[in-house]
């Protein structure tokens, strides 16, 4: 890889924010170097590249760092203009994609993280919140998929897809093992379920998804740590 277009991604393998950038680069066919960060022992480069938040992911393009996953995704799309384009050309459609991306990121991901990291009454309330928001999304994406269920052929992956698939999957087996129930229920939210099914079957997504038992282990690890630190 020539020095004129050097791309480095500082990430962490269980971070969904890191995953969405990794997938974005792969979908665009952009060669990159991946640096796995140990969040208990952050590299000096990470601290230098993201002094404000000290978090992953950070994309470094020709030595210049960019932080915040959605900012990075828009940067990738504006810099490498080949297919797939992550945002539509029409400004109103772009606004709609940004709106739903913001909804998924701020409302859905927040609720899911609360569900993972809490128990008892707080968790129950978070579950309620999460399912309510999923129903809103189910209605809302009908305008994005006006022809009904998305299908896998020629699927043009975009900003909203990348953000959604990095946090949610249609894998009910895992959900039932970790949460004792389905999170993405094909009966309650059929459009979201079929959308996620299409996304997670895309070859690039499939090959970068860890096996089920590892995913379960990730959830349990994050949950245990969160519950432990909330008792401290």
């Amino acid at each position, binding site marked *: 890889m020539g020095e004129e277009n050097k791309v480095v991604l500082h990430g962490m393998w269980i971070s969904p924010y890191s995953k969405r950038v990794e997938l974005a680069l792969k979908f665009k066919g952009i060669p990159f170097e991946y640096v796995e960060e140990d969040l208990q022992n952050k590299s000096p480069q990470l601290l230098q590249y993201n002094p404000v938040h000290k978090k992953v992911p950070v994309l470094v393009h020709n030595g210049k760092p960019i932080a915040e996953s959605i*900012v990075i995704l828009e*940067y990738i799309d504006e810099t490498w203009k080949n297919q797939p384009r992550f945002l539509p050309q029409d400004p*109103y459609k*772009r606004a709609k994609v*940004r*709106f739903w991306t913001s909804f998924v990121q701020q409302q859905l991901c927040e609720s899911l993280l609360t569900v993972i990291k809490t128990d008892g009454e707080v968790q129950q309330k978070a579950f309620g919140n999460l399912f309510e928001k999923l129903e809103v999304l189910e209605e809302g994406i009908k305008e994005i998929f006006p022809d009904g269920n998305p299908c896998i052929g020629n699927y043009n992956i975009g900003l909203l897809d990348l953000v959604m698939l990095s946090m949610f999957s249609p894998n009910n087996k895992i959900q039932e093992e970790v949460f004792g129930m389905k999170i993405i229920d094909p009966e309650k939210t059929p459009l979201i379920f079929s959308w996620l099914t299409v996304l997670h079957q895309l070859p690039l997504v499939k090959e970068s998804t860890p096996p089920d038992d590892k995913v379960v282990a990730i959830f349990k690890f994050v949950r245990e740590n969160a519950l432990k630190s909330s008792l401290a």
Partner: protein
Amino acid sequence: MAVVKLLGAWTSPYVYRVIWALKLKGIPYEYIEEDLSNKSPLLLQYNPIHKKIPVLVHDGKPICESTIILQYIDEIWPQNSLLPTDPYDRAVARFWIKFADDKSPSISKLYRTGGEEQEKAVKECLEMLETIEEHGLIGGKKFFGGDKINMVDMAFSSVAHWLEVIQEVAGVKVFEAQKFPRLNTWIQNFKQVPIIKENLPDRDKMLALLKHRRKMLLASK
């Protein structure tokens, strides 16, 4: 019939961002003041999910969330652009806009809370100001946008105008000019920009309203 309508509330910094953007680009619009304690059917129709202002309506199509609205405005009317043209500079701008969006709610928390909650808000607010001072305003530029204001300057407007009023309402002192010299210079410059100067909520009116709101909020707790 106006092609562009803006639904807003006169004290919201998020609404002013949109007003400044429209005025900078010379876009005529109809402004509709919303009573947030009694939301209009129009607002509920245009923003059913969040039921919040601002909402921009362009040719009957609603756009919600001020940062999304500003990007839409910038894309439809590219004159006097609100973001840099270079993708890297745009990414840096978007980083700071996100930072402003995530952290500036701590400013309104200052007057909406008391006791421990308010102490927490003071701490969050201070951290935000320190970050801007240390990392955001380096490079000696007059504005985040260079010689002219851009979307980033607008995103930090609550620091420039609202913070001072809210400090008085809340009885706390977070911003001190000598502690934040770069930020102080930026605030003075920002408030002198004609579009900004001529389009800010009346300070005394806002002071009175927020004092009243604080009384009601603390009484209900």
